[in-house]
């Protein structure tokens, strides 16, 4: 079976600048696919090419196996929810939603019924007569999506539609959007710079940087097995340790950290150049406080607590490895087991060697939290 959307080696250049560089991916029918990347990574350009507003400089875009080359946006089986929603202020809600059907030549009570059914499904059954300016942010959101869904597109594109909402509503809409998608079963392609939005809603996430995809995979996969330094930093929180690698006489790879600690590594990395700088990534929740001694495949590190950030289930410890100025973030489980820890305490932390990843420092591009 053909994928709902198939993008093959699509490239877009603006002058000398390559905005999208040989990007390929497939989206299966009925899936929620997100493209996650920082602003300026080319994700909007890619989306506009899929919608048909930009003509790719190379590559092909297929919907259900049909080549879209040279097909204008108004003839494509795809609809776009704009970043600013772009609801028509000169029409009321009903007219906005019916707009696409009318352009398709549908008339009469059939249109009214479809619009009413859809309004009911998005939970705004009484708002057909309302003007756009009378709607709240979240309602506008739903109307904008309904306006596209009524066209029954094979793919619905969403360009950061939650960007304009306040934090609380955004959390709510994330869940709502995911539910709506599974309800209607339309294929969603969602672009965002917010990794939490992408992870919560998507079946598959593509992390985009500098015009190409760094990694495509399920959110869990991206989180636990990042394939690049960029993905490790951009998806979820991560601790970054600057290290240099060498191998010890018995062939184990050792990461030298802050010129004083030798940290064991499970990952096989090329260590031919001992001066090459590497970044070692450890998730805050992978770091265990006061681990039991003597476990295999385990690395301990003595640290001093610099501060305790209490935030309910999301509480963290800031610790500094002894003899360094650097700071690591450690998840602090609220099991009351660690209540005795105070600032300035010296404690042991440790992690399972399988839970760390290491990438060449020179490989990361564009994005760095520092």
């Amino acid at each position, binding site marked *: 079976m053909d994928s709902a959307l198939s993008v093959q080696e699509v490239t877009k250049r603006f002058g000398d600048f390559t905005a999208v560089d040989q990007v390929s991916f497939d989206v299966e029918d009925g899936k929620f696919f997100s493209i996650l990347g920082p602003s300026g990574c080319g994700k909007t350009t890619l989306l506009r090419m899929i*919608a*048909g*507003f930009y003509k790719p400089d190379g590559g092909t875009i297929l919907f259900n196996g049909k080549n879209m080359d040279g097909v*204008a*946006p*108004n*003839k494509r089986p795809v*609809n*776009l929810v*704009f*970043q*600013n929603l*772009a*609801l*028509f202020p*000169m*029409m009321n809600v009903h007219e906005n939603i019916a*707009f*696409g059907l009318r*352009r*398709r030549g549908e008339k009469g009570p059939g249109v009214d019924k479809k619009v009413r059914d859809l309004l009911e499904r998005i939970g705004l059954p009484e708002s057909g007569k309302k003007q756009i300016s009378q709607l709240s942010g979240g309602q506008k959101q739903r109307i904008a999506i309904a*306006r*596209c869904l009524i*066209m029954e597109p094979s793919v619905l594109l969403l360009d950061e539609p939650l960007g304009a909402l306040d934090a609380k509503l955004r959390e709510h809409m994330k869940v709502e959007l995911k539910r709506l998608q599974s309800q209607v079963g339309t294929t969603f392609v969602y672009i965002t710079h917010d990794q939490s939005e992408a992870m919560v809603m998507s079946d598959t996430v593509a992390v985009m940087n500098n015009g190409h995809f760094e990694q495509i995979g399920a959110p869990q996969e991206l989180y636990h097995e990042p394939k690049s330094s960029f993905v490790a930093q951009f998806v979820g929180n991560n601790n970054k340790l600057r290290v240099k690698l060498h191998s010890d006489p018995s062939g184990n790879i050792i990461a030298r950290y802050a010129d004083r600690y030798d940290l064991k590594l499970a990952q096989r990395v090329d260590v031919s150049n001992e001066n090459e700088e590497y970044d070692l990534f450890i998730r805050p929740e992978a770091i265990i406080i006061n681990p039991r001694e003597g476990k295999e495949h385990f690395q301990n590190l003595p640290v001093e607590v610099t501060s305790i950030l209490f935030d309910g289930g999301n509480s963290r410890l800031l610790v500094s490895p002894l003899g360094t100025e650097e700071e690591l973030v450690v998840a602090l489980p609220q099991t009351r087991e660690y209540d005795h820890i105070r600032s300035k305490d010296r404690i042991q932390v440790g992690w399972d060697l399988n839970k760390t990843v290491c990438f060449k420092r020179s490989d990361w591009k564009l994005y760095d939290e520092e």
Partner: protein
Amino acid sequence: MMKNRQHIKWGFLFFFLPVVLWLFLLIVLPHIELLRLSFTKANTGKFTLDNYMAFFEEPIYWLTFVRTAGYSIIVTFLVMVISLPVSFYISKIVKERMTGVLMILILVPFWVSELIRVYGWMILLRESGVLNHFFVSIGLFKEPVEMLYNDITMIMGLVYTSMLFMVVPVIGVMDDLDNSLIEAAYDLGASKISIWRTIIIPHCASGLVNGGIIVFMLVLGSYLTPNLMGGKNSLWFTEQIYNQIILYFNWNQGAAFGFLLLALSSLIIWVMLKLTRQNLKEVVT
């Protein structure tokens, strides 16, 4: 507190008084005098309706009147039709840098007086003019043709002279039109024509009506262009007023014609606002 209030009142008066004086002395007072004149007999100064009756009894007067009204509406409509794509091009299609240049190109001809611009047209179009010379020399015409002094030339001249007053307000509202609305309509399957019909023109309605009122009033009351380009074949109602007052020295008849023209323009603008469901207050602000 009191002092402050006093201060505001003086400031208010300072700006308000010239406006009141200007309105009263230059507009209200002359119109009251004209209104009085229009209802009095030329020699005796007695009350009469003859001046208005003359308008209805003499076909040349009311025919000119109807012609003027009809052509003014046609000109206004033509100006709207032409200025929409022009404004769209200037506001949405060209690069930002070019927008200013094009606006200046539209404005520059209006730095020259209307008289000079009309003479420019005459040099181009008259029997011994540039166009005739060119067409005869390339063999398209056997002999020079008089292109001036007909309705079509006059309408063209009126459209040309009033274009600016439509383009400027329409560009104003067009700039406010969010490009993503056009894209959204396109994305939802609208053709170019239906994007114009459903998105762009409804959005520009206030600018169009605003420009329409200005253009209509300018055209209806214009004298130079119809006189010079239309000549004797294309009479304009302002020429009738001119003739009465200046040629026949019949101020009373001229005043009556003037009021008929005022009534006509008010009526047509009112109908226009009703038809487009626009509010005068919204349109002018």
